């Protein structure tokens, strides 16, 4: 079974893709059947992915030498493209995690989407989404990865805009697609550069050649440019500043989609790509610094927005942006291990919290404002307590998953600073402060939603088993999923690392520090939003620092800024080009047509209609040509094909 799985890993993405085809062409009229097909395919793919993961994680040889098999897709002179499968601990981990979360989300969707008229369509999209993501994860070639990357983008477009009758959903879908396309364009340019310079897009081939970039006749400056171009893709896909704007709006889709996009798939694709191409970024310290700073800035930026938001899913969305910034920070300081570890733990607790939020919305009939909730834990114990576990995990309370990965990131950032990198301590400060804010805004949300006074107008009820079962599984994983990466027995770091494995001594001081931060954040939230039943102090603070509060509540006016930019700059330049098109381009074209018409009108008088005149002209012309060929210049004769003796 394991050997079969290792050599047939391509079946993992293929099964959901097949489910997509079956649902679209066969089972669409029968929603129950469509759901069953989709879940069956996804579950088989999960079983297969688990076998692959087992196979990889029992063979340490794969750490240094990944299992790669590929097919020639097409080739021509000096340019070949292979498609293939690349299995190493990183991709095996992703394969396992993505297929598992996707399976749980599909099970959850049977409850959440129950009775939706587009039920079958929804499952077909979910299957295609999972297929694209799983394919992306095992890609051995950057072009193959790019294609699947775009497919993931397409599916997210379809799913965010799933409620096509809602204008906001349609707008959000367009926004997501266009914003990520901007990033993808930069990435495509980067890939073209790589192909032209290094002659391959195979990850293994590039990893071999990029360190010797000088032999390929390029400077460090150009390589830095290429690395940054490639990184623009992940900026768009993983919602990094300044292309983060689409991600919070992506909440317009059904909640399982938000969980799928925000936890397991689309957004981590960017982080995964950076992890996969770390050989490139590690060569160019400049690009790595850019990644680290964008990551750290995004983390704190999104966290400061999240503390004032009111909609439950929006808070979670900004928290996702913030956590993705954390992962980028880890990759930027050169630690694949820490970045991927946070990706892994984040997938569980964030999927858990999104599904929990979906359960809440389900119970409250899509009432999303956390200020209108309260005391829900009494009526919805499973949702509530699993959500609390997610909150503990993301805040970084040991022994929950988030603590270990966040701690790991703080450790590597501190090490980075100690190695004498300029501004390294700034990164560390930003990361620590983000940790404090994360604990605060998460628990603000939890206290407002699940604790405190019940609101009489709400009639919540616990969700069905199909929805609570995934919550329970994810809660278990969010609780213990981090234990494989503790500083005492770092199994994770042994398997997934870049360069030399990280052998840090447990840094108890730092651990204490990060726990203190988390406790302080939770304590502050407790004081402001639980103890203070009327939330007087919170309101006073908002009053006193109103400019800051407004700045945060309006998300630093980034959307307005983009809107202004579109209106003023894009539309204005469009007007200029429109004028140019109408008055210059059109006039040139019309002028050419007019000139042709005029000359035709002049020349038509030579058209006598008398056949013998024409014949005479033919003959005279022939005579001229003959004379030229016979007596003219040899070059002309030669060029006309004549034989000159």
């Amino acid at each position, binding site marked *: 079974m394991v050997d079969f799985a290792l050599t047939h890993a391509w079946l993992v993405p293929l099964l959901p893709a097949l489910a997509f085809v079956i649902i679209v062409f066969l089972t669409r009229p029968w929603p129950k059947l469509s759901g069953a097909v989709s879940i069956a395919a996804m579950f088989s793919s999960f079983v297969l992915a688990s076998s692959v993961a087992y196979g990889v994680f029992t063979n340490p040889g794969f750490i240094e030498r990944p299992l790669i098999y590929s097919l020639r897709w097409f080739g021509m002179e000096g340019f070949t493209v292979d498609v293939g499968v690349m299995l190493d601990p990183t991709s095996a981990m992703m394969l396992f995690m993505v297929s598992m979360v996707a399976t749980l989300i599909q099970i959850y969707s049977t409850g959440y989407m129950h009775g939706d008229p587009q039920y079958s369509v929804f499952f077909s999209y979910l299957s295609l989404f999972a297929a694209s993501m799983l394919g992306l994860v095992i890609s051995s070639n950057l072009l193959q990865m790019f294609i699947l990357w775009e497919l993931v983008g397409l599916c997210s477009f379809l799913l965010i805009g799933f409620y096509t009758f809602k204008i906001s959903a349609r707008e959000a879908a367009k926004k997501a697609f266009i914003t990520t396309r901007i990033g993808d364009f930069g990435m495509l340019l980067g890939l073209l550069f790589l192909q032209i310079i290094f002659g391959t897009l195979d990850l293994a081939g590039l990893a071999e050649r990029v360190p010797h970039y000088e032999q390929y006749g390029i400077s460090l400056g150009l390589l830095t440019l290429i690395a940054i171009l490639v990184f623009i893709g992940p900026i768009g896909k993983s919602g990094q500043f300044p292309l983060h704007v689409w991600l919070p709006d992506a909440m317009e889709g059904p909640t399982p989609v938000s969980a799928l996009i925000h936890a397991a798939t689309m957004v981590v694709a960017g982080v995964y790509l950076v992890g996969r191409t770390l050989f490139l970024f590690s060569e160019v310290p400049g690009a790595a610094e850019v990644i680290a700073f964008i990551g750290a800035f995004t983390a704190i930026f999104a966290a400061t927005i999240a503390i004032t938001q009111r909609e439950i899913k929006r808070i979670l969305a900004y928290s996702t942006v913030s956590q993705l910034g954390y992962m980028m920070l880890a990759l930027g300081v050169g630690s694949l291990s820490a970045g991927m570890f946070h990706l892994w733990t984040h997938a569980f607790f964030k999927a858990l919290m999104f599904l929990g939020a979906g359960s809440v919305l389900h119970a409250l009939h899509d009432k999303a404002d956390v200020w209108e909730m309260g005391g829900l834990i009494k009526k919805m114990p499973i949702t509530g307590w699993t959500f609390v576990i997610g909150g503990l995990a993301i805040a970084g309370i040991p022994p929950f998953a988030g603590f270990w990965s966040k701690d790991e990131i703080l450790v590597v950032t501190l090490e980075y600073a100690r190695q004498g990198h300029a501004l390294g301590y700034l990164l560390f400060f930003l990361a620590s402060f983000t940790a404090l804010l994360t604990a605060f805004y998460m628990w603000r949300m939890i206290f407002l939603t699940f604790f405190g006074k019940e609101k009489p107008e709400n009639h919540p009820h616990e969700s069905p088993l199909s929805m609570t079962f995934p919550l329970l599984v994810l809660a278990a994983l969010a609780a213990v999923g981090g234990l494989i990466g503790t500083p005492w027995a770092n199994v994770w770091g042994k398997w997934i690392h870049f360069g030399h494995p990280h052998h840090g001594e447990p840094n108890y001081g730092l651990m204490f520090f990060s726990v203190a931060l988390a406790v302080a954040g939770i304590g502050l939230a407790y004081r402001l939003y639980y103890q203070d039943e009327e939330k007087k102090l919170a309101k006073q603070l908002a009053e006193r620092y109103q400019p800051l509060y407004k700045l945060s509540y309006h998300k630093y006016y980034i959307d307005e800024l983009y809107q202004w930019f579109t209106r003023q700059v894009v539309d204005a330049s469009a007007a200029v080009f429109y004028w140019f098109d109408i008055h210059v381009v059109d006039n040139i074209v019309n002028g050419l047509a007019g000139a042709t018409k005029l000359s035709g009108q002049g020349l*038509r*008088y030579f*058209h*006598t*209609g*008398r*056949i*013998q005149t024409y*014949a*005479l002209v033919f*003959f005279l012309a022939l005579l001229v040509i003959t004379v030229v060929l016979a007596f003219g210049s040899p070059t002309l004769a030669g060029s006309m094909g004549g034989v000159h003796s």
Partner: protein
Amino acid sequence: MGTALNPSYFMVLSAALFAIGLYGALSRKNAIAVLISIEIMLTAVNINLVAINKFLTPEAFIGQIFAIFVITVAAAEVGLGLAIIIAIYRNRHTVDLDDFNWMKW
């Protein structure tokens, strides 16, 4: 045969025939006469082909084959030409080329 036969005799004959044909084709007003003149020009070409073949490559029959092709095509062409002329005559009751000028602006 013998030495008396000089290629230039054939050339002169052919050129003369061609010139006659050309003059006829360009100057005659009767469409049938123009057709006949074109046939004369083709004949001039055929003479040239056969004669030059004789003096350049006596073993091969390239010129002769070409001439046969020309004759074949000419037969078809005459048939077509006459058919067109008859069709025009039925419509216009004339075969005078000066009247055939309605293809102009």
